[in-house]
């Protein structure tokens, strides 16, 4: 992509139309539209089962103005890989001549948990496809159950805060690093509040000539318990508190911090405490109780540990 002005981006085809049934304040359509602005080539989209899939394609309606396919929950990467394999075969045989791009959208359950095997396999095989995790940090489509991506201390319907429980006790998998460890050409973390950073990474992912992975934080007003007009502000807060650093990894070795995260690392912006992140969301409100203070401190320590490690990786 030669340019990245809002004026030019507005000229790109609208691949996901309005009128879908996602909740007010859901970040998923914002992220998907930004991702799809990352290429000028025709795109075939696949979706793993989840909020985004059901909300955009309830028969006889579809919100997709580009080829779209869904098969099941844990196999989004294999679905996308199948479309790409057909494309490679037909292109080699001269039955298709145009360049096309392929992307799968999955929730965090369909990425971190049930979808991990198919995702790992597709990345290892080197399909020319991008896998995007719309990470709202829980099984929102089934009613806010904890996943391997759920933040520590979050109260969900299967990790509820209670008299003797502070919500989810475990730390989320570092899925972006897991994917980077596949040594794929491109892996990145993004946030919808910084569209320039997001679209630029989407473009790198689409054009990297192999498999790519993008992990997008996707604030969920229903599951995270915040007013629906604050979605973008909440996404920004995740970056400012370093619970969701913005970075990219090329070929599993070249780590680069980007945007606000780079400014924090360079001392040009403040690194905010994790309590700011907790205070903005109802799912963490129980952590304000005095008895969970040591638990909150342990979360801050883990956030710091991961942030320090990431800075080291980026300074290699």
């Amino acid at each position, binding site marked *: 992509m030669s340019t990245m002005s809002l004026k030019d981006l507005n000229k790109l085809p609208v691949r996901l139309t309005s009128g879908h049934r996602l909740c007010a304040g859901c970040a998923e359509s914002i992220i998907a539209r930004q991702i799809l602005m990352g290429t000028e080539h*025709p*795109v*075939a989209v*696949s979706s793993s089962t989840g909020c985004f*899939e*059901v909300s955009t*394609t*309830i*028969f*006889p309606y*579809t919100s*997709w*103005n*580009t*080829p*779209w*396919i*869904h*098969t*099941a929950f*844990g*196999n989004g*990467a*294999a*679905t*996308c*890989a*199948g*479309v790409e*394999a*057909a*494309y*490679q*075969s*037909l292109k*080699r*045989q001269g039955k*298709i001549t*145009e360049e*096309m791009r392929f992307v799968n959208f999955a929730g965090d359950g369909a990425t971190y948990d049930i979808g991990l*095997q*198919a995702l*790992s*396999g*597709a990345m*290892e*095989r080197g399909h020319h496809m991008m896998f995007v995790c719309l990470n709202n940090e829980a099984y929102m489509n089934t009613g806010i159950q904890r996943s391997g991506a759920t933040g520590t201390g979050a109260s969900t319907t299967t990790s509820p805060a209670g008299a003797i429980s502070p919500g989810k006790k475990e730390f989320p998998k570092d899925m972006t690093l897991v994917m980077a460890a596949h040594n794929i050409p491109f892996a990145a973390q993004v946030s919808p509040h910084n569209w320039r950073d997001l679209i630029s990474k989407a473009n790198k992912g689409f054009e990297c000539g192999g498999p790519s992975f993008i992990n997008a934080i996707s604030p969920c007003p229903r599951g995270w318990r915040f007013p629906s007009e604050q979605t973008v502000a909440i996404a920004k807060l995740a970056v400012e508190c370093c619970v969701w650093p913005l970075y990219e990894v090329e070929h599993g070795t070249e780590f680069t911090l980007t945007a606000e995260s780079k400014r924090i690392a360079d001392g040009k912006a403040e690194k905010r405490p994790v309590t700011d992140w907790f205070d903005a969301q109802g799912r963490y409100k129980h952590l304000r109780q005095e008895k969970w203070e040591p638990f909150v401190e342990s979360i801050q320590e883990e956030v710091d540990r991961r942030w320090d490690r990431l800075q080291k990786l980026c300074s290699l």
Partner: protein
Amino acid sequence: MSPKDMAINGDSAVAFAWKQIDPDVCAAYPITPQTIIVERFSDYVADGEVHTEFVCVESEHSALTVCTASQSAGARTFTATASQGLAYMWEMLPITSAMRTPLIMAVANRAVSGPININNDHGDVMAARDCGWISLFSENVQEAYDMSIIAPRIAEHWDVQLPCLVNLDGFILTHAIERISPLETHTVKEFVGEYKARYPLLDHRNPVSHGLMDGPDFYYQHKYQLVEAMAKAAQVAEEVFKEFAEISGREYHSVERYLCDDAEYIAIVLGSSFGTAKAAVDKLRAEGVKAGCAMPRVYRPFPEKMLAELMKGKKGVAVMDKHLSIGAYGPLYPEMIAAALDLEVIPGMYNYIYGLGGVDVTVDHIKSIFEDMVEGRSEKVNFLGVKL
């Protein structure tokens, strides 16, 4: 000029048929006793003898997913599996048919765990029978080859558009070397033709959405469309069998019969046991017993009218099942009884469970089933050869 006969095992014969068809995509995962199919096919890919994009997936679930998506994208696609592999694919089986993707899957029929067992029975494919796939059975290696060429013609017919299973008994056919008469490759290619998808996903100028969510109304309607497509598949299968006979000289039917017309007692079997049953029938005939046997080659769509006609006026029908719904019957038995309900007089109907987990079934075993029926010893459900 016909090509030379070959000595070849069942798996390699299936792979050879697919080499001649030259599909666009194959995605597969190794599992005994299917593995030789994808090994031989990998050789063809490695030697540049096919145009196929071969996707070596990390599981059977992904194998069927890749195939379903690939066929939806507009590519002719095939795969092969068995036993646990088919079980692992189960989630995708009804999705593949509901998405109307006419891909072909060879199943090297093998027992399903547990206990783990690698030998032949029909536990794998019977667990797949309710999923909206056409299902064809083969008696021998020649038929496994022929069914592989016939299957895409039935599945891809624009009024059918359903996926199709080609069954061949594990080890008994997959690993047995038999003499077959293959067709010329150009004959196969002409017979199968170019694949034309109805709504290919890769046609981005005419974007379509595949695999949407249905509410109760549309779900039921879409399932009913599969019922209609299956009914159409029954007609198409007969037409394709006729066309195939013209190019090969080999005649196939939805229900294969052996000496059934004047028989008083018949056995119904699936797969390689049909050959064993024919040998038993020959012996019985020599002894003066009016015996016959039949195989529903097309198991789905279930050819119930032909089977009812077959059972008309018989004294006894032994329905032989290489699978068991524990606590009920073998799967074929209640279906044969349902077919027999069309008759004014319903023959004696006996279920024989046999061959589970690879228990050998001989000519004498099948002969004993007829002797049971003639002597009135048959129970409603019988466990042939079980050691108590």
